[in-house]
């Protein structure tokens, strides 16, 4: 690398005596082409790597709305929390009760919703405002609810959600910095599957 630069300088010194302006522009063009090539190759490395990392490893997202108060957006208002969504740990669709997960909305495929998992497949759930009082979560589904009951569009309105819609698991609150924390699974009090209410209460 270093020898290449020296030889280029030698060439320039030699040619400078001939016609300085043209040599200067030629050198500039050479350098510009090198920068362009470096930029393009870097672009083709950086974009796929970034996209893949966002798809497979982790994703950063802003939480909007009041459905997860008081855990996210406790003050309400315009400032939104930013969370880190762990996508690597849900690659096999493994979640546990109490996890906060982001799910592609069954109502609107372009929207993602962030809720807490209350019940997994086979659990019996006492619903809050669903059409049936008690529901058995079918295979390959889970029951998700927002922490802010009544202000949340969740399984109480559209029923159990297919696990295939799972997008990520919220693992950290990144912003605001004074509430930076790791999110550990915890079920809200008096919510959860009916038989296993005594276990996993404090995660």
């Amino acid at each position: 690398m270093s020898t290449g630069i020296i030889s280029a300088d030698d060439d320039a010194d030699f040619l400078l005596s001939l016609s300085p302006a043209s040599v200067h522009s030629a050198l500039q063009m050479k350098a510009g082409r090198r920068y362009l090539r470096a930029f393009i190759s870097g672009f083709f490395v950086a974009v796929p790597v970034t996209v893949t990392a966002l798809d497979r490893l982790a994703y950063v997202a802003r939480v909007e709305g009041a459905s997860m108060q008081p855990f996210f957006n406790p003050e309400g208002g315009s400032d939104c929390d930013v969370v880190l969504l762990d996508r690597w740990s849900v690659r096999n669709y493994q979640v546990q009760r109490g996890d906060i997960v982001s799910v592609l909305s069954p109502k609107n495929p372009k929207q993602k919703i962030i809720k807490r998992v209350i019940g997994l497949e086979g659990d019996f759930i006492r619903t809050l405002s669903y059409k049936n009082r008690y529901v058995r979560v079918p295979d390959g589904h889970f029951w998700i609810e927002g922490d802010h009951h009544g202000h949340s569009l969740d399984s109480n309105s559209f029923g159990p959600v297919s696990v295939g819609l799972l997008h990520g698991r919220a693992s950290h609150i990144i912003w605001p910095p004074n509430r930076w924390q790791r999110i550990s699974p915890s079920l809200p009090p008096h919510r959860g599957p009916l038989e296993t209410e005594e276990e996993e209460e404090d995660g």
Partner: protein
Amino acid sequence: MVKALNAPSVEMFRRALGKTLGFVGYTIQYGCIAHCAFEYIGEFVVCSGPSMEPTIVNHDIVFSERMSRHLCKIEKGDIVIAKSPFDPHMNICKRVVGLEGDKICTSAPSDLFKAHTYVPKGHVWLEGDNLTNSSDSRSYGPIPYALIRGRVCLKLWPPHSFGTLSESPTKRIVKNQNNSD
């Protein structure tokens, strides 16, 4: 081990390390490019099972493109690959019979009284072409649009049937828009 190292072996070690790092870097780069291609352009799928029988038979290889799913351009009559709502590791290949808001006839053709249902918002109604041997939305109801992975646009194997896929042999798809209120 460390004592035995001298200058040429250190040089060799450095070269081997550099080669390994370069190899790992290229692997990551091409892996990421492959991921992006499979995720956003399309993928090859081997179909199995009888549910799409006249159109796609067992062990056919099809190409499914992902772009129209990301752009929400799935239309009635398209054949799609979707995640099974009851097992996310399994994929199903069905034909879209109704989009959100469409009216679907759920009763058998021989029934005297016709039963209808409306596809809810954000959902699609999937049916196999082989109506007698297919478990689809007629048994488990509409599925969310977001479970769709891609639209089958090309059949690659066997070679004598290479090309685009034919229209639905069943007369289940209502093209007219008189029920879109």
